[in-house]
């Protein structure tokens, strides 16, 4: 128990870029990550890419999770990645969840989104992937 608490907790930012107001998925993921022992900074709805990157840097997170249902992922996700790069913070892995068509997912992975979870993904898989990404950045 004591030894376990000595390892530093993973810090992860969960944010919803764009204008849709459906944050149930993001909240469920936030809670699952909390239950896996992570410190989840929950930034909530309607975050601009600028706000997301700023929060990630101030909070010194190990990982960023983006949730989107509005369909604006092809505009917003690359912007987040570009801002991270401009801040020399590309080592922070970004994963995403929401309604993202397969062909978009392929392109986003190519651009640097490290994992994309569609509807029906198990929380176990999300937690496992998040742990792996946070512990072993590229």
């Amino acid at each position, binding site marked *: 128990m004591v030894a376990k608490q000595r390892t530093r907790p993973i810090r992860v930012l969960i944010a919803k870029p764009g204008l849709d107001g459906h944050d149930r998925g993001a909240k469920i993921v936030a809670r699952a990550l*909390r239950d896996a022992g992570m410190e989840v900074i929950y930034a909530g709805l309607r975050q601009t890419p*600028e706000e997301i990157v700023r929060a990630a840097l101030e909070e010194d997170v190990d990982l960023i999770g983006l949730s989107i249902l509005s369909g604006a992922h092809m505009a917003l996700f690359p912007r987040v990645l570009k801002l991270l790069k401009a801040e020399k913070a590309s080592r922070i892995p970004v994963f995403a969840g929401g309604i993202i068509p397969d062909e978009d997912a392929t392109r986003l992975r190519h651009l640097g989104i490290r994992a994309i979870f569609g509807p029906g993904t198990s929380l176990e898989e999300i937690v496992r992937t998040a742990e792996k990404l946070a512990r072993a950045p590229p």
Partner: protein
Amino acid sequence: MTGQRTTLPPAARAIVRGDRRALARAITAVENGAPEADLLLRSTYSRTGRVPIIGFAGPLGVGKSSLLSALVTQLRAAGTTVGVIAIDPSSPFSGGSVLGDRIRFERRADDTGVFFRSMASRGASGGVAAATRDVARLMDAAGFGVILVETVGSGQVDVAIREIASTRVVVLVPHLGDEVQTLKAGLFEIADIFCVNKSDLPGSETAERYLSELAGLGPGPDGWRARVVRTSATVPSGIPGLWSAIEEHERFVAGSDVHRQAERRRLSDEIVGRVRDELTRELTLRLEAEAELRRLVDQVVARKLDPRSAADRLVAEERR
């Protein structure tokens, strides 16, 4: 010694220069008790103790985060730079935590005059994390004009902020209870300022009256009589009044011998605490390695010796 005003190590120099990434990383190091944290804290200590640290305590859901957000807006309009530390609880089960205070925080993404950091309590009781004081020191060294600390929103005994903040604001809302509540020990004792938030709701005059009666019973041991202000973070209203009460208290503290003594005592406690922790760690390791301890435990398990007497023997042994 590394602690004096000599040349700073590069990471510390970056913090003092206002490098936000360096500050963010240093805070992580301090939170995790990482080896590099030690040098950073030693080398920047002489640059701390310069700015007001304002603590906000109060129950869950009274609007502390929203109030801080409104306060930051006012401070930024006046050109003051602000560091914010917002603490939320860690799970006693998983150790994880959801830090949600950022949500309430409205500001421009390009405003570098504000630095907001969420902290998990990581098992500490009392409403703040063990590292909160040192994180506030880093923000102080980074040159922010004022530091706001939002404690875990919980109960009546979350008074650890007393040891960190120069001014303590206890945030309440209408209908939390009658005037007898205000006489109880704990949270009500540490307030320099009572803030009745959500004052657009009915009942806020009554809450204000109870608190004013409490404050009217007389000044605290330091000679300060608690102020009572009414605010609404969402309207917003009362925010300038809250800030002037804080400023008034800060001026009082600056001229107060009682507070100088209290600061001295706090720093003395910190030093003694560090010595105690270090010696306890050493002693624990040494005792656990001793065959005598195992022999005594055998006797205690067999009910041939009681734990107190066993401890007495080891103490006698240590003193020899």
